[in-house]
């Protein structure tokens, strides 16, 4: 092991560049998958004839595939049918597609956990179905969904590391370039990379726990 050589200032700067891209890609994917997840989860919950079934099939198919396969597919296979994306856009697209499906399921079960009696009460007091959903059901459900949603975001942040396969210059990729120089760099670099992920994700999970205990 060569700790001093592995963790030189230049190397740390190079790692920091990668980490910035990781956070950037993760942030945009989180935002997009949050929106799409809520829309798809609600559509599935709402039991609209045909549409809800179609959404269910899409969500279930994606949820049951490995993310790695989705990344490969979007970057290597979609160009064959004419959709060409740069590594950054492909990474964001793949993460968004996968995490949206995971979030849609969280949203659906969150909505399902709200007592049906409330819907009936709201409806009979004159609200439309959509009004009931938006102003009565969704706010309560969202609060309940916070912990699973945050853990899904943590997964997403970790999963950005898989984008190393399309040579996206993110955290893991830059780590690889450094340890490629010398096998004695591997373990120190892994420790640093693992700790960086740990710190960010652990903070996220602490926030989730605080939100959870506040609502309890």
């Amino acid at each position: 092991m060569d700790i001093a050589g592995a963790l030189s200032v230049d190397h740390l700067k190079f790692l920091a560049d990668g980490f910035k891209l990781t956070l950037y890609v993760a942030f945009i994917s989180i935002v997009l998958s949050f929106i799409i997840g809520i829309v798809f989860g609600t559509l599935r919950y709402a039991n609209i004839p045909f549409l809800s079934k179609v959404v269910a099939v899409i969500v279930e198919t994606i949820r049951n595939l490995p993310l790695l396969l989705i990344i490969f597919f979007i970057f290597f296979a979609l160009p064959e049918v004419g959709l060409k994306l740069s590594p950054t856009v492909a990474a964001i697209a793949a993460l968004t597609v996968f995490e949206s499906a995971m979030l849609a399921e969280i949203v659906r079960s969150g909505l399902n956990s709200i007592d049906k009696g409330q819907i009936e009460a709201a409806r009979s007091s004159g609200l439309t179905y959509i009004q009931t959903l938006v102003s009565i059901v969704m706010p309560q459900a969202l609060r309940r969904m916070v912990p699973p949603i945050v853990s899904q975001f943590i997964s997403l942040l970790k999963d950005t590391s898989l984008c190393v396969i399309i040579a996206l210059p993110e955290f893991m990729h830059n780590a690889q370039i450094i340890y490629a120089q010398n096998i004695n760099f591997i373990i120190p670099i892994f420790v640093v990379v693992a700790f960086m992920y740990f710190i960010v994700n652990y903070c996220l999970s602490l926030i989730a726990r605080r939100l959870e205990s506040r609502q309890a």
Partner: protein
Amino acid sequence: MLDFSILINNLDTYLEGFKNTVLASIIALIGSFIIGVIVAVMRIAPIKPLNWIGSAYVEFIRNIPLLIIAFFFYIGLPSIGVTLSGFVAGTIALAIYTASFIAEAIRAGIQAVPKGQMEAARSSGLTYLQAMRIIILPQAIKIVIPPIGNQFINLVKNSAILGMIAGLDLMYFGDLVSSHTFVTFPVYIFVAMFYLVLTIPLSLGVGYLEKRLARSH
């Protein structure tokens, strides 16, 4: 629309990968369950140092990417003298990673059983372990089955990580078929189908159990 000749001409390759994916999943599943139970017990046992170790394991492993754990076992360990094949390294990494989620699910399940029951059981003369085994665990199991089931589905999906360390799984061989035939779209569609053959029944099974257990409460 789909060119099935890709599947037929490379069927042996696909099946070899599929077999290894199933094998890695089963071994990692058993391994992660055993480690998960041990860690969960450590976290709730009335001995402080054990609690700390258990918590540290769960919090650390849960918050780092599986890829790092897999790389660590495949190319990190050899620098301290332990060489594992891609399949073995990947399977161990999968078990260790999934165990942290399973431990957390089990702990949450056990703690969902009201504390009073443990106290009542202890005061009626049972030891801690007896109370755990006879009173607490049977109730906790009902609560933890759905989340553990979901973790197993994740495990099967995550096993694709073996493809990145030459673990000879479905993802690895799918990738080879694609790079040797210069065809990508149908190759990956067939890989996806093989994964769905595994994960869809698992998902349906977990969904069914979830409903049944919810009813029996």
